């Protein structure tokens, strides 16, 4: 087991190098000179532009820029953004906010998705099942920004139950509405996944055996059906954490959440290479690590799965 985990962590090294190289190259290939853009409509002062290009290594060829960036990482210096602030500090500001948002969305979709999915699965073909299925289809069908604006306007502006945008501290309370919007799509998937899985397991031999043994209905559902049904759901949730963090751009835009998505969008439009690469790389690492955790959870949920070195 330990060797397995070690092996997986070693795999992070090529993933890290590949991701940074690829993203750095993509940002490098973006058309337009970011320094010229800093001047806006105003005349470009070449002496000033030259100094700024030198400061951000933009006068160097691609490989040198990339290697300088890597060198920076190993000396714990991610460089600076255009406003002269260390990128490490920027990451420290935006990641906790988005992590909070993503985890809240994950909890929302996991808790409600599994509960609704379980009930729908157990009552297959009944009224509740039908309603939930149709509702989830609608949620999947509507784009997230439509749902976002709709909820923001009705709940935030008209009813006044929540603020339409988050406050400066981005507290848990502020983030409830954005988290629901962010998690809604995945919630529908979790629900459907749980439902299908529960229906499959209800017909399994061991469930029949357990029922025949005289176990209570409650215990059969809890231990034999639910637990076995969770394996595909956990896979989905694990992969979804990464997707939620990276995919929060739209939600963060609607609710003005000062998180990763907002900063990333600005960095991309301004052509701030090192900022983009640093943010994306952290997102990639989160994705990889959460997948590793999912794999480990498998073994926990299903004793038949063993990881050998």
């Amino acid at each position, binding site marked *: 087991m330990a060797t397995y985990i070690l092996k997986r962590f070693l795999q992070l090294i090529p993933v890290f190098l590949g991701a940074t190289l690829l993203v750095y190259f993509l940002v490098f290939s*973006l*058309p*337009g000179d970011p320094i*010229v*853009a*800093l*001047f*806006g*409509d*105003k*005349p*470009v*002062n070449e*002496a*000033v532009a*030259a*100094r700024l290009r030198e*400061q951000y290594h933009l006068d160097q060829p691609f490989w040198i820029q990339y290697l300088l960036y890597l060198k920076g990482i190993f000396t714990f210096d991610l460089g600076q953004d*255009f*406003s*002269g602030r260390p990128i490490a500090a*920027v990451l420290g*500001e935006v990641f*906790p*906010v988005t*992590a*909070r948002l993503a*985890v*809240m969305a994950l*909890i929302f979709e996991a808790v409600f998705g599994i509960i609704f999915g379980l009930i729908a699965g157990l009552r297959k073909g009944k009224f509740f099942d039908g309603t939930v299925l149709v509702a989830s289809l609608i949620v999947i069908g509507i784009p997230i920004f439509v749902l976002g*604006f709709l909820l923001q306007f009705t709940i*935030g*502006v008209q009813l006044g139950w929540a*603020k*339409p*945008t988050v*406050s*400066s*501290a*981005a*507290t*848990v309370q502020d983030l409830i509405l954005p988290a629901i919007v962010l998690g809604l799509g995945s919630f529908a998937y979790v629900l459907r996944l749980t439902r299908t899985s529960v229906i499959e397991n209800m017909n399994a031999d061991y469930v029949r055996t357990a029922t025949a043994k005289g176990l209570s209905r409650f215990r059969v559902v*809890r*231990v034999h059906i*639910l*637990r076995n049904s*969770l394996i595909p759901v956990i896979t989905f949730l694990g992969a979804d954490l990464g997707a939620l963090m990276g995919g929060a751009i739209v939600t*963060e*835009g*609607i609710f*003005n959440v*000062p998180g990763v998505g*907002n900063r990333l969008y*600005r960095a991309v*439009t*301004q*052509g701030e290479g090192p900022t983009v690469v640093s943010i994306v790389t952290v997102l990639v690492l989160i994705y990889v690590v959460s997948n590793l955790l999912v794999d480990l*959870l498998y073994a*926990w*949920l299903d004793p038949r799965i063993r990881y050998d070195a």
Partner: protein
Amino acid sequence: MRFSRTSKALGVMAIAALALTGCGGGGSTAGGSTGGGASKVIIADGSEPQRPLMPADTNEVGGGKVIDLIFAGLVSYDPSGKPVNELAESIEGKDGKNFTIKLKKDQKFTNGEAITAKTFVDSWNFGAAAKNAQLSGSFFESIKGYDEASAEGSKVETMSGLKVVDDLTFTVELKQPESDWPLRLGYSAFVPVPSGALKDPKGFGEKPVGNGPYKLADGGWQHNVQIQLVPNPEYNGPRKAKNAGVTFKIFQNDDAAYQDLLSNNLDILQTIPTSALKNFKSDLGDRTINKPYAGNQTIAIPEYLPEWSGEAGKLRRQALSMAINRDEITKVIFSGARQPAKDFTAPVLDGYSDSIPGSENLKFDAEKAKATWAKADAIQKWDANKTFTIAYNADKGGHKAWVEAVVNQLKNTLGIKVEGKPYATFKEARNDATAGTLTGSIRAGWQADYPSLYNFLGPIYKTGAGSNDARYANPAFDKAISDGLAASSVSEGNKAMNKAQEILLTDLPAIPLWYQVAQGGWSDKVTNVDYGWNGVPLYYNISGK
């Protein structure tokens, strides 16, 4: 106990969630005090400054709004754009070339440092010197010695045109006479900065110390979130704060800000987003403003393109201009958020005229447009397969709608192929414009840095000027401009500038389209809202109800 494992798995997630949610927090909320009148903190919309908050390094609105409130320069502009002395006791210059500037006594930064003639000279030299790489350094270009100080790799760090006479007096010598030069002194690049700023500009830019009506609150700049300003009690100029502070809440998109305004979480929104233009008046009632400001929109047509050069090119540009129905577009597309242009400047400026000879070229006249186009064709035939493009940036500003409208009007009136050409980002568009590699026309917006006709003409249409996207070069125009600058007074100068505009209106290196109109709104918690000449709310004047 197999069941407990499942609950453990869920438990781990819950704990992780709590840990993550717990580690955030901190920072104060944007909510202001609930009191009325002068005890109200105004919550306004802002955007994250692109550079450190160093006056000479700030050239965009996000940082500019903050700089203007925490610094005071020699003069500031009143709502109509007239300069009013702020730190200056007097600014005198008879020949338009040599100026003597006297400062008011006992002026201080909020850290206690006194503001003297030397403070100004040092600040300006710092802004101009190439080694400091300040984005707005070119604002000092008229001062003698600027070229030496700003040259790449230059060792010279001072401009020879600046001389300290005594504690409160300094003199400025310009390269050549520029009668409107004192008008520029209200621009943020000209404010004084304390000596600490010159030693550590980056550190200073994080926690700027100024002398304006406001100062940055302790830890007031929460990056990407908000910038909190509190009144500076020692400020005694004309822009005294009438509220208990201004908090700029940083928004990535205007729609979110508008929702915040509707629910009274935001007190003032500088610009109503395009999506709300149709219904903001019914949403906000009389809590809105509609006021022209010193900005305009044009389509610049590069003269380096063969089909747009010479006499034929000139006639074609006139034809294009007369084929555009500005009234219709400003009404239908902008719902009145723009005003049809009648010249190259803006109506809020001193000296503006809507009837300069040649302005008839900006009136819609389909027949005349066709006839003029035919005249050009007689000189040089237009290739019918050629497509005339209007380039714009698609990332912000909502230009697509009006570009499409102009495209259709040109197609219908002139019967030529016309297309909008979107650039993905602003920087891409600027790249081609500054490099001189445009293949068609490009939209060009200009927002004045200081209220002067010259600011709309010189920097854009003078031969070799920095923002001359059209690469327009006409010695007669250059001469008219320098005559205007050498004029003995601002009003004489304005007359000469309008003479220069007559040339522009015939040559049309760019086709003026419309003037910008500020359309903003405010919450029912505040009152006394007015906008300045530049379309920015006068934040210091707003008070609670």
